[in-house]
């Protein structure tokens, strides 16, 4: 009998039923571990996660978590998350009401043969060239996750690409409000 294949990871496209949780947390050691540990032990799936100091207050950080609401009911995820003592506030933005943006950085090795097609891709994606030398170009795109997906796909044809994405942050569209828990 052949042994089962080791898990090599899967390309994890944004789940259809995703929600964006904006979680205000105390800026204390271990907070991220508490959140990650909770998701792991309860079997909730995180699609992406972005953390940064919260607006104008060093005491708090804002964690933007894209959760897979298929993996567990949103009510359970929010209820358990809210029990973490360091979690101060949770708002939930449903995808249709969300203005979602993500940052993509990519360095592509390039030569005379493919430079033109690369520049076309960059231009049509609306990305900016932020660094360049004789052999390579670094581009940046701040756009919707879908646009980032498209650029990522378009760059697949290039042989040597180093690409990083931040995970998304989101705000409610004007006239819409996030659901506060």
């Amino acid at each position: 009998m052949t042994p089962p294949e080791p898990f090599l990871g899967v390309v994890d496209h944004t789940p259809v039923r995703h929600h964006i949780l904006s979680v205000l947390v105390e800026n204390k050691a271990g907070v991220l571990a508490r959140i990650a540990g909770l998701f792991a032990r309860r079997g909730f799936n995180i699609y992406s996660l972005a953390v940064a100091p919260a607006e104008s207050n060093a005491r708090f950080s804002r964690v933007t978590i894209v959760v897979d609401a298929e993996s567990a009911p949103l009510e359970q995820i929010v209820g358990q998350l809210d029990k973490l003592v360091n979690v101060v506030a949770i708002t939930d933005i449903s995808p249709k009401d969300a203005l979602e943006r993500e940052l993509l950085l990519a360095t592509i090795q390039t030569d005379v043969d493919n430079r033109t097609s690369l520049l076309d891709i960059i231009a049509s994606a609306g990305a900016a060239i932020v660094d360049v030398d004789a052999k390579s170009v670094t581009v940046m795109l701040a756009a919707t996750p879908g646009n980032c997906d498209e650029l990522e796909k378009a760059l697949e044809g290039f042989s040597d690409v180093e690409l990083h994405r931040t995970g998304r942050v989101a705000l409610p569209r004007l006239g819409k409000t996030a659901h506060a828990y």
Partner: protein
Amino acid sequence: MQLSGAQALIKSLEQQGVDTIFGLPGGAILPVYDPLIDSSIRHILVRHEQGAGHMAEGYALATGRPGVAMVTSGPGATNIVTPIGNAHMDSTPLVVVTGQVASAAIGTDAFQECDITGITMGITKHNFLVKSAQEIPRAVAAAFHLATTGRPGPVLIDVPKDITQSTMDWWYPTTVDEYDLPGYRPEVALDQQAVERAVALINAAERPVLYVGGGTLKSRASKELLAFAERTKIPVVTTLMARGAFPDSHEQHLGMPGMHGMYSAVTAIQKCDLLISLGARFDDRVTGKIPAFAPHAKVIHVDIDRAEFNKVRFADVAVQSSVAPVLRAWDAASATPHNLDVWWKEIRSWQEQYPLVYDEPLADGPLRPQHVIEAIGAKAEPGTIVSAGVGQHQMWASQFWKFEEPGTWINSGGAGTMGFGVPAAIGAKVGRPDRTVWCIDGDGCFQMTAQELVTARSEGIPIKVAILNNAYLGMVRQWQEMFYDERYSEVYLSADLPDYVKWAEAMGCVGLRATNSKQMHEVIDEANSINDVPVVIDFRTDSSEKVFPMVAAGASNDDIQVHPLQRGGAK
């Protein structure tokens, strides 16, 4: 006033009204043990840190006040992980202080270093790594606030050695704001609309059941429960965690539901049209196969923890609150179901057909374990506290002991921690020295934590331990008999090894043994006459006895198996 961190820690505990710490010193916590000498707090020196944790739990369950344990870093801390996990599962208020290696050594794999805040992250309500001596009072005050409010639970404070050795200017928080817990809001305003929708469901009910869980005890709602139940005539079941919340002698009490619940309690839930859950969490040991659980019932779910709502079972009405205010609000609204005479008639017929039974006691032994528990109960003074380990003896204790008041049943429910009984009984006796405390234990459980009887003897804590010695890991044996074709794998322990009487005597306790009914009565009387030292009784019980009724794991509660004596329609 300048104090050392260690002095501040002890003074903070005194400030919280702590009268007892269960603990065991070691390197990293050493500084704190020095000011303890001058403190009014009683320290109980345990023989193993697990004992300290379970004692603190027993203390908390018997008194309703948080239990406090203190241990050193590394293995001291990991040894108390099991009680912390146990308290987390049963929502028991606990404050555990652990020593930690000096701040500068954290992260270097120092001697007796372990990441105890990391280890206990998932099994504490919250934990703290104290970063400065000045922060100690805040950490202690916050820990007690967290442990005792909202849904109670264990809180751990990890204090590095350099912090307890440094100095601070004494202060103590006087308001909740000073606890620095901006994300913690345990008080929730009662949702009047939810209360009204619940009242409407109650008013419409024809076959309601009050499903009473541990949260009812935690919110001290027994009086309100009694008043509400008597006014509405709704039948009551009390889960393993809620035994004592409603008197067993009350005619409306159907007993415990679940895997080894009373037939009438299990069946009433299955047939009810309204299940009123009061601080219960639809544990799998109660529900059995979830889609088949209470299939005709609408559900009112009252819980202080909103994460319990719709976790296991959809709640038609969810009321986020502790139990007592909700019962008062329902009484104020005169919530009253339909006439329940027909429902009660049905329930009485189940009670008559399937009461709790066990095989006729044999005069020459071996003893029936159920008979032993009944005999101890019959000779116990009212208000006696009973602890148990985990397994058959625990189920029999819950079934055959008559619980009449809160705080008299000390057991490990959610975690199912073998070895809980003896240390928990010691903790309960420390908290309630006025009460007689019996530990109903199994031989397997007893062997896990029996060394704490040395603690009990040396600290003058006269508990009584009844070992239902069937020479087996009895519950596992029962499952192997019923579900593994009687293929017994690693469950035999021997009735004679160890010699429990000699072992008890070696630990400074009185050791007694009973192999037949006559001796059983004699040794119980003798144990009851001894009130200065712990007593251990080795009751030789029948190893073939099984716990009934039983719902097999994962089966529907409709497929409850009654005692063999009751099969084929016979009583």
